[in-house]
């Protein structure tokens, strides 16, 4: 369809979640914004192939995901660099405890295989249905479900099982552990 003002507005409205997706995938704020820019250019260059009435965010996420994939093959993630750059993208620094927990979560997420990480983010954070996530990743719905499940169970093993004794007097964790008895 042609690039109408409405379509422009709709594309613009998707930018915040495209950025969040790009940062979650790449772990790098600067690179994420380059990915978003490239996604927007490609989307507009190929706007004729967008089906009016179909899911615009899913279409944009598909473009971004494919760009990230092709880029990924060329250069591996710079994990060392990721945290510093990610921190810079945050407007407000979280309080220290929350910040440590956040870093730990980010680390665990980085350890997931890419297929599982993207499935978990699409379903668990972007709020796509399993069907939309499957379309974005170009795989079967059952495959997405199993990737999400594996991602969740791996994260829970990384964050809460192996290191369970390491937790200090964190109220939330105490509540979680205490809640098991009830």
């Amino acid at each position, binding site marked *: 369809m*042609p*690039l109408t003002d409405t379509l*422009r507005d709709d*594309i*613009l409205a998707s*930018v*915040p*979640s495209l*950025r*969040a*997706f790009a*940062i*979650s995938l790449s772990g790098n704020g600067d690179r994420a*914004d380059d990915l*978003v*820019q*490239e996604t*927007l*250019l*490609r*989307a*507009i*260059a*190929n*706007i*004729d192939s967008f089906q009016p009435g179909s899911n615009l965010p899913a279409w944009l996420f598909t473009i971004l995901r494919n760009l990230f994939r092709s880029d990924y093959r*060329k250069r591996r993630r710079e994990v060392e660099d990721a945290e510093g750059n990610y921190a810079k*993208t*945050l*407007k407000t620094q979280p309080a220290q405890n929350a910040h440590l*927990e*956040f870093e730990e*979560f*980010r680390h665990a*997420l980085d350890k997931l295989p890419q297929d599982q990480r993207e499935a*978990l*983010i699409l379903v*668990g*954070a*972007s709020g796509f249905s399993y069907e939309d996530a499957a379309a974005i990743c170009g795989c079967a719905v059952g495959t997405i479900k199993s990737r999400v499940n594996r991602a*969740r*169970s791996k*994260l*829970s*093993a990384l*964050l*809460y*099982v192996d290191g369970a004794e390491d937790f200090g007097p964190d109220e*939330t964790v105490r509540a*979680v*552990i205490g*809640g*098991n008895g009830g």
Partner: protein
Amino acid sequence: MKEVKKQGGLNAEIQSRIGHQLRAMYDDVVRQGVPDRFAELIRKLDGPEAAAAQIDEPAKNDGRD
């Protein structure tokens, strides 16, 4: 991993916590809104040709690796 499956209640709590952390990380970026560079980019592109002209074609440079 076996431990997680055995303790169903704890597992559900952990899963909800993971979901919460994931969304907190994501929404933190969403809340930043649209950076000016993207608003400007979309505003100034008047059509597909203008966008296509701005895309670097990586295939041109490293098509043979």
